[in-house]
């Protein structure tokens, strides 16, 4: 079962890789007019007051943007490139199923939940990320282009995980044998997965924003075919607003567990310190996002710094520092 899990991971990474290539094909050769069309299409007419306002008097303000522009984007519909995009989505689903298979077989082999060490934890976090992405795609097919970046992140993270921090299957050490293990790790895992998902629109927003301001060099040229900037920015905020309470919950659960296990709820262990740093940075992001005087670009940069601190926490702390969280 353990060997099967390892093989499934390899196949899963391959599937993500092929999905990424298909996305890239669509990205490179896709119907340029898709996004352009959406951008130039006249704003939807708001309901008129009966036949009231008329004449040549401009009676209406442009409609407020309470409706995300993503809804105005039709799913890509035609062309060979669009076919590649559709194949990419199917492959991503296949890869996600294999990814889930990796986790399940790992769990069966270990006879416990598959997040007992860092290798398994990253597998679980990335699965949450991809599942959330597929759920999002179901509701907003217009975002399909972002799949290229999502699958890229998956290939990189899973590749690093499989190569650097692979751990043979085994049962839990007594220190992890607690109810809080499930509460803490699942909340942290879900939140981390969401933050991983959130970084994709955040980066693309910055690229798109630069592109809209007339920057055409690399890397802004990548943003030619991504959704409109405000859609990406809003998506970034939504994902982070969802992930932040989960992260808070995970940290609180960890503190409760730490009290029972180590005798203190907070002790500035490197992992604790970095989770605090991430929490503070993401809190800064949410505040910046809610403050009109702070530019959205600045706010998004804060989110990106937050993500870097997350990566530091996920990988760096275990690799560089010695602490209580070193089980893997």
């Amino acid at each position, binding site marked *: 079962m353990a060997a099967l899990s390892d093989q499934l991971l390899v196949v899963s990474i391959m599937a993500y890789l092929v999905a990424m290539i298909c996305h890239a094909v669509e990205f490179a050769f896709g119907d340029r007019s898709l996004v352009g069309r959406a951008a130039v299409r006249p704003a939807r007419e*708001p*309901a008129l*007051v*009966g*036949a*009231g306002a*008329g*004449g*040549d*008097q401009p*009676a*209406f*303000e442009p409609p*407020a943007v*309470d*409706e995300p522009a993503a809804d105005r984007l039709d799913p890509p519909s035609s062309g060979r490139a669009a076919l590649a995009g559709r194949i990419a989505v199917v492959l991503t689903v296949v890869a996600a199923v294999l990814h889930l298979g990796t986790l399940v077989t790992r769990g069966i082999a270990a006879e416990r939940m598959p997040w007992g060490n860092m290798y398994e934890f990253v597998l679980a976090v990335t699965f949450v990320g991809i599942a959330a992405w597929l759920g999002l795609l179901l509701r907003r097919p217009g975002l399909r282009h972002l799949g290229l970046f999502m699958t890229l992140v998956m290939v990189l993270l899973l590749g690093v995980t499989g190569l650097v921090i692979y751990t043979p299957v*085994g*049962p839990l*050490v*007594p*220190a992890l*044998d607690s109810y809080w293990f499930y509460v803490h790790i699942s909340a942290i895992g879900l939140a981390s997965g969401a933050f991983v998902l959130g970084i994709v629109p955040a980066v693309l927003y910055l690229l798109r924003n630069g592109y809209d301001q007339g920057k055409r060099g690399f890397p802004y040229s990548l943003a030619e075919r991504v959704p409109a900037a405000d859609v990406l920015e809003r998506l970034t*905020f939504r994902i982070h*607003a*969802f992930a*932040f*309470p989960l992260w*808070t*919950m995970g940290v*609180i659960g960890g*503190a*409760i567990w730490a009290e*029972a*296990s*180590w*005798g*203190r*709820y907070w*002790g*500035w262990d*490197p992992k604790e*310190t970095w989770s*605090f*740093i991430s929490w*503070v*940075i993401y*809190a*800064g992001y*949410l*505040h*910046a*996002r*809610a*403050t009109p*005087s*702070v530019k959205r670009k600045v706010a998004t940069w804060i989110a990106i710094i937050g993500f870097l*601190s997350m990566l530091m926490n996920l990988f760096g*702390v275990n690799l560089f*520092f*010695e602490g209580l969280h070193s089980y893997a």
Partner: protein
Amino acid sequence: MSVVEDRVAPPAAPPPRRPNRVLALLRNSWRQLTSMRTALVLLFLLAVAAIPGSILPQRDVNIENVEAYRRANPDLYPIIDRLGGFDVFASPWFSAIYVLLFVSLIGCIVPRLRDHVRALRAAPPAAPRRLDRLPQHAVLAAPAADPARIAAVLRKRRWRVVVRDGEVSAEKGYLKETGNLIFHFALIGVLFGVAFGSWYGWHGNRLLVAGPDTAFCNNLQQYAETGLGPRVDAADLPPFCLELTDFDARFLDTGQPSYFQASAKVDEAGGEPRDVEFSVNSPLRLDGASAYLLGHGYAPVIRYTDRLGRVQTSVAPFLTTDGNLTGEGVAAFPDVNIDPATGDRDPDQQMAFEGIYLPTAPDAPPYVRSVFPAERSPALMLIAYRGNLGLDAGIPSSVYVLDQRQVEAGKLKQIGEAKLMRPGESWTLDDGSTVEFVGTREFITLSVRYDPGERIVLVSSIVMLAGLMMSIFGKRRRIWFRTGPARPATPAVAGTEPPATASTTGGSSLMEAGGLPRTDYSGFADEFKQLVAAVERSEGKS
């Protein structure tokens, strides 16, 4: 965390007659401090300031690592130490950041609390003149709807409603700001709980060897390391005695631990001694303290018979150095070879055995590392020393290592070669004395702690989380219903009859509805449509 956007602008202050520079400076500084921009900078600084706390070893976390750092970087150490680099989270600069942050926070949320209370008590505002300019707008199919009935429909959906002159104003989602304020006040609660716990809490760490003769009673002297809050006195420690009766550790064949359980006998004041069990994730909860199992190891029992035939036994815990529980330690016998006639102790005839204990010794030498954490093939590697142990010098020294100064000074000499002993084996030294490895006892490392701030922090954190969710998922929005165009109507059809001046009379009047989401809320259009439909339905029924 929608912030001050909603706040009503304070009325412009009247120009001060006599500008006071100091007051103006203070006021400006206060405004600057409580601004969101400052708060963001402080948040960012807080995050950055915490980073050295993870890179440099911290005294509160692991003092041995700080000492190791001192030895490795003797030049850098004093500079970093002066800057507080080894006590980052207690350093003045870290404290300054969070104190400023909290002052800024209070300066921000107290006025917001006042505004919010005012908003909660005020009626929803009157409709803007032109509802059709709002993000959501509709004209109802039922022209002459009864405002009271519309209000009823809205109230049923838990809107806050007021009817003025046939105009219905309603607002919902106050919980967003309520939650936001709760979140921030709960943060203050967390800080208070942490401070309270550090003032009135205490902790002590020690080893506890199994057996009635090694039991301990709660007392500062009984701990190897203690930390008392500034408001705690040694006499405040709750009285209890603890004896480790048994320790059960199980391991997989790979050596990974699978199960720990400590059995103990507790004697608390005002009760019978009772048997308790505790383990890694389930600490022993006592009245006024909790005992946490942190680690375990083996204490070899060594019996030494001196050349005069007097027998002494040492139970010395050997500190574990790796996952396979290789132990290193010292069994010291300072009171041996005492002349029975005079009772004099010859300080140069003291004995000590330095050793390595291997719960599972490898099949072949070198016998320096255990290969399995359980006692499958126990062996004790001993080196005997005779001489002055240096215990009377008055210098505090570790009981787990020999005083190397004595060895280097030649006052403590090694006798013979190192000797590998199995349980029950004896070793006769050059002077005819014998040492016997009797066996081992288990020991555990314990942390005994009391933190009265824990509950405050826990409750505050949960309240904080609840407030955070309300704040993030709440949506403030307003909706208005009005009969007839209350503005100077635009011509109904351009170029036809002149407009009726704000007429609301007769069947020609219209029922308009307008909606305004005050926060980022994509579902508002749907909610608005449903509300309008609900109002129309209720009109249809009448």
